């Protein structure tokens, strides 16, 4: 008769077995990477990471866009994952470090040079140049340049985040202005006339500069527009020197500093938005810089404000300018099927699909052929009219690292704890140290 095993023996054998399996698993894992070589039309599972989306985009993606791709590419499937900008950078960094990246993913304005330097973006140049039907020429030259690093096209723009001046028509009219300002002098006049204060407290900011909840880059992003209007630039053309100690940079910062501390037309930090309702839409400011998201948020959360808040062309300081944050799709260099990942990226940035995405996300699209798309409202067109004046970030691979000391020094100058000139000199010194350090 077979002797039954006791509990200790059972546990012992189980533990030995588990250890054996674990050891085999650990030893096998480095050899498990598979590389696919697929024939055209062959089935493949792709992953897509979305960060720039709203609920309507999610619905459109899952109900329309992805089913269309699957229909055009029989047998293929696409898994869509969602993230948010607040944790996106670290999420993608760790994904690349672990070698588990999505095949296609969205990226922000500073991503092209960073992706290229790290070798994380698949070079799309050959695909794009060979594909006349998809039409790369439909993207404006400025946007093409933004995703071209050292001659390689590393991404495809899906959105122009253009920021221009928005104003409240009712507030301006009540103050006796029939048209929005077009230059710094007019701007100051309007801002002074529309500011409403109760003692030291702002009830309406003549101009809304920035708010705390917008994160640590808020002042820098808001200042950048003024810097560009003053004719300044962040880095020298060869990217070797910081240019914030130059006259235009100081002129811009001094102007904002005076708006806060001399003319007192904006608080610092500014009034907070009410959830997703921007300060200007809530009626707490007469003017602010913003992108087409203001239009989206009016449509979604404050439709009664639609006839009161409008965009206009960027202001002219030394020159008429604004900034464009170009968001783009990338194909991961770690994709096991980069050719098929390109198929997905190509599909997502095709005119008809980009129109669905842009319409549901209320974006200003990157393709010129979409300028007359039915979903484009007058306000969208007005925002896009700022495109010819837009500048993009310099192509340095460590922009986030360079922005940080600038953001800190700007905060010091704007709180009045440091003289603006000294703050810019200190920022320049710190940025130059980082630039020299590589």
């Amino acid at each position, binding site marked *: 008769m077979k002797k039954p095993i006791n509990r200790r023996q059972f*546990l012992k054998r189980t*533990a030995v077995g588990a*250890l054996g399996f674990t050891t085999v698993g650990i030893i096998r894992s480095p050899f498990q990477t598979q590389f696919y070589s697929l024939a055209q039309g062959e089935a493949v599972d792709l992953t897509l990471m979305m960060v720039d989306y709203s609920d309507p985009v999610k619905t459109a993606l899952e109900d329309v866009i992805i089913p269309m791709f699957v229909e055009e590419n029989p047998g293929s499937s696409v898994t869509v994952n969602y993230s948010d900008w607040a944790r996106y950078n*670290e999420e993608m960094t760790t994904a690349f470090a672990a070698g588990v990246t999505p095949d296609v993913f969205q990226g922000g304005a500073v991503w092209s040079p960073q992706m290229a330097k790290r070798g994380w973006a698949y070079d799309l140049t050959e695909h794009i140049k060979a594909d006349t039907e998809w039409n790369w020429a439909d993207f404006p030259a400025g946007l093409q340049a933004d995703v071209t690093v050292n001659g390689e096209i590393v991404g495809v723009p899906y959105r122009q985040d253009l920021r221009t001046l928005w104003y409240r028509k009712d507030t301006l009219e009540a103050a006796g202005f029939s048209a929005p300002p077009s230059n710094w002098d007019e701007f100051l006049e309007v801002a002074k006339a529309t500011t409403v204060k109760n003692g030291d407290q702002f009830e309406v900011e003549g101009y809304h500069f920035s708010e705390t909840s917008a994160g640590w880059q808020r002042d820098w992003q808001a200042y950048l527009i003024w810097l560009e209007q003053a004719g300044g630039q962040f880095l020298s053309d060869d990217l070797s020197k910081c240019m914030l100690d130059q006259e235009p940079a100081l002129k811009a910062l001094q102007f904002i500093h005076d708006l806060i501390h001399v003319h007192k037309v904006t608080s610092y930090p500014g009034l907070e938005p009410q959830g997703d309702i921007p300060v200007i839409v809530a009626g707490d400011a007469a003017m602010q810089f913003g992108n087409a998201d203001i239009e989206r948020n009016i449509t979604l959360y404050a439709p009664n404000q639609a006839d009161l808040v409008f965009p206009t062309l960027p202001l002219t300081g030394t020159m008429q300018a604004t900034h464009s944050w170009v968001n783009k799709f990338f194909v991961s260099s770690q994709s096991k099927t980069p050719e098929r990942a390109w198929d997905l990226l190509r599909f997502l940035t095709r005119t008809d699909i980009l129109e669905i995405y842009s319409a549901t996300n209320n974006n200003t699209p990157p393709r010129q052929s979409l300028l007359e798309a039915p979903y484009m409202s007058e306000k969208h067109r007005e925002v896009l009219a700022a495109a010819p004046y837009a500048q993009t970030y310099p192509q340095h691979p460590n922009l986030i*690292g360079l922005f940080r000391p600038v953001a800190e020094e700007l905060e010091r100058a704007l*709180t009045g704890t440091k003289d603006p000139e000294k703050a810019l000199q200190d920022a320049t010194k710190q940025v130059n140290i980082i630039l020299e350090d590589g």
Partner: protein
Amino acid sequence: MDVVTQTRATKQQRKSLGQRLYKFYNSQTFVAILFLIVPVGLLIILKIYPIFYNLYLSFTRYELFEPPKYVGLKNYRYVFENSVTRQSIWNTLLFTIEAVPLGAALALIVAKLLDENFYGKIMYRTLYYLPVISSIVVSAMIFRWIFNPQQGLLNYFIGLIGIPPQTWLSDPNLALPSLVMVTIWGSIGGNMIIFLAGLQDIPGEVLEAAKVDGANALQRFTHITIPLLRPVILFVVVTFTISTFRNFGLIFMLTQGGPLNRTNTLVWEVYMSVFGNLRLGRGAALSMVMLVMVFILTLLSFRVLRERQG
């Protein structure tokens, strides 16, 4: 020794090795080793190895996409020479010094009150414990509204007693105290439960004897309860100190290190170094500094509370 004798000896040796192995397989030591392999292995893989790897990284320049390059003490020099990182060390200490004693004292007072017999004490215990089970993100979102300068509840309440509205999270002087407030709110329930368990362990006879001897409630609390609670206080102080050092979620959600770097703590600086600038070596050096600081503070807590206990 001839060849035959040698072969026999070897066979005997083999046999005895097999026997020894079989004996070991059936021994309690083998069972103990088997069951220790997993936890010890996990401890090595998840705790000890990362600490030493982190120590190694702290002497390198490592940007993830290129192999680490040895740079000696450069990262440590940066930590102590750079004004922002120095400020982050100071902010961390300030945050801990403000949050831990106050939070622990409040938790002890609440625990003492909830240790008494009164109607609805279970409900109060539950209510005080609720923040512990709330997600840090949700809590932070709620507090963002509470601290909102225009529509915030806090400004409404201070307005009722004639204090003008404050900008709380945007005010360089109020941002850190605001975070301390939220930290204490979030931790009071957890610490209260530990204190409550400690209070219930104090023998009733001792307190009864003190009462008979004429000690009033305050005297019983300071001369009987507190001394007997010292091991529990030590535990709460040490764990609360460590969790305060690691407090990242609130800073990420509410202030992102600002305004003017006043809430820029070590853990935020590590995050910015690693994910903002991709300087993993610098982040590793900051982590080592944080480790040493926690270690010193823990030792200090042990020394102070144990000496008093003695």
